[in-house]
């Protein structure tokens, strides 16, 4: 039923529109293929045996396919340490960041808040100007936060951008709610926690998702502030394997020759990519609508 309807719509179009549509759909199709093809390639190649992979790339000689890469990656403790740390940092960072940001957005959303202009200026300046890498690093060092998780969690906890988005959202909540609460003698705290926050769950979910994914996927702060292997988040472990081609201790060391170790290290990259991306890939379709909401909230502000 449906394809037929679509076809007739297409047939109704004038010739030049048809040509345009065909070109357009082709571009879109190529882009989709360009996204899907590498993913399929990496999934397939992660099963190929290391020698074949290095010599001729992907092969469909299924008799030689192997699960060794997955076994080695999954049985490596550093990967699991990375996962555990990434989860810990992402959850804590999300909680701290969202609390600080939502709190600050509330006074900024009130028309009668005295000092709003002052705070606004102070915050907005930091979006465009900063001390830069070295002064920030030296401050963290002087505060004794090097190689502690606080260096990852605290300095970036307050996001001006997210504050603006939350503030815009608060301002869209009908004033009657607040006036009613004030007449009832509710204090700021009660109004904020009992009345305002419950109606703001969409934007809270959105900001939380952003912060979580942002922390989960970043590596720079961890790279400069954390030294201990036991504190490394997943992305740093991945960096060693994928970018520096330095597999974790024990992953390839049982191989006899240097060549065999290098070949295996190469294969491990494929399995590592799949294993490390799987959690977010599976979760993302469920959270997609929150991300969409947030993008729209940002657009409203702009």
């Amino acid at each position, binding site marked *: 039923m449906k394809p037929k309807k679509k076809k007739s719509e297409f047939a109704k179009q004038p010739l030049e529109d048809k040509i345009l549509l065909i070109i*357009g759909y082709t571009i879109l199709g190529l882009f989709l293929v360009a996204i*899907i093809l590498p993913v399929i390639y990496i999934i397939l190649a992660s099963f190929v045996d290391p020698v074949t992979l290095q010599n001729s790339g992907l092969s469909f000689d299924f008799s030689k396919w192997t699960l060794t890469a997955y076994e080695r990656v999954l049985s490596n403790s550093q990967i699991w340490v990375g996962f555990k740390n990434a989860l810990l940092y992402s959850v804590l960072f999300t909680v701290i960041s969202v609390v600080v940001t939502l709190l*600050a957005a509330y006074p900024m959303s009130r028309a009668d808040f005295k000092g709003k202009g002052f705070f606004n200026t102070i915050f907005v300046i930091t979006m465009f100007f900063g*001390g*830069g*890498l070295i*002064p920030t690093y030296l401050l963290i060092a002087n505060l004794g936060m090097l190689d502690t998780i606080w260096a990852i969690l605290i300095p970036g906890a307050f996001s001006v951008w997210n504050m603006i988005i939350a503030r815009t959202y608060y301002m869209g909540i009908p004033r009657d709610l607040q006036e009613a609460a004030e007449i009832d003698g509710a204090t700021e705290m009660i109004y904020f926690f009992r009345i305002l926050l419950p109606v703001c769950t969409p934007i809270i979910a959105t900001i939380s998702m952003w912060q979580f994914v942002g922390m989960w*996927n970043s590596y720079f702060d961890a790279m400069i502030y954390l030294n201990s292997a036991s504190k490394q988040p997943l992305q740093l472990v991945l960096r060693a394997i994928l970018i520096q081609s330095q597999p974790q201790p024990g992953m390839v060391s049982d191989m006899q020759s240097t060549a065999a170790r290098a070949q295996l290290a190469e294969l491990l990259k494929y399995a590592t990519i799949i294993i490390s991306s799987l959690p977010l890939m599976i979760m993302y379709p469920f959270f997609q609508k929150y991300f969409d909401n947030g993008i729209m909230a940002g657009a409203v502000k*702009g």
Partner: protein
Amino acid sequence: MRKAMANAPAEKGGSKMHNLLVYLRQHWQLYVLFMLPAFALTVIFRYIPMGGIMIAFTEYNPIRGILGSEWVGFAHFKRFLSSPDFMRYLMNTLKLSVYGLLWGFPAPILLAFLLNRILSSKTKQKIQLVLYMPNFISVIVLCGIVRILLAPTGMINMLLGTSTNFMTMPSAFRTIYIASGIWQGAGWASIIYTAALSNASKELKEAAVIDGANIIQQIKAVEWPAIKDTVLIQFIMSVGNIMSVGFEKAYALQTDLNLNASEIISTYVYKKGLLDGDYGFSTAVGLFNTVINVILLISMNALVKKMNDGKGI
């Protein structure tokens, strides 16, 4: 008369003070509970480092501190600006972001127009699911994928029937950086335009179709006006960020052999400062970068104000 005139301002000032105190007593929670955490974090982690910019004018010695270190004035800036590498790093940074903007900016707009032409909303949703997926891959994994696909025996060489090692070619770096950026981000960035397009008046569009407008005419009359403002805002924001090319991705795509094209100011600041310990020099280079960025942003905003009847952002 005189007395009244003299008293009036004082009284007014006094009651103003009084009103403020009453306000503060009633609303102290707003300041202490709501504002203080964010304010303290901003002052400590954003403004104190701004004071640390002084390091750029000293031969910084961590033991003696900023004030105890030798004051060298603009020596670091002179050294950087007169070094032969300066132009290369600056141009690498600018080329990466300007070319990135030229290719990367139109891509999501084009995608949004194409998506808007898909009539079945179920098909559209499925396509969007695929388009957005790369956005959730981390920088490290993205660069890992890029390195694998571009390896001499990787997928790209397999398709081309060659065995070129792209990651060692300086001439390929920018293409790799920008293409992988579009691969990862164009779908996601199209959301905002898709949303703006869906806000385009349906009646207007139907009227245009009944009037026999073809696709080009529909785009001109209905769809482009609906997203024009969004495009403009996105463009200004992109230009404002031109000097802040992401460190993470450039660093993860660097190899010893492509540094000629891949060394940008932010990676240079990191290497000079944290790896070589040349704090003063590195801070000076970073400051130079920030100042250019601020100048670009201010002039861009002024330009838009002029074009947009006095409305900036």
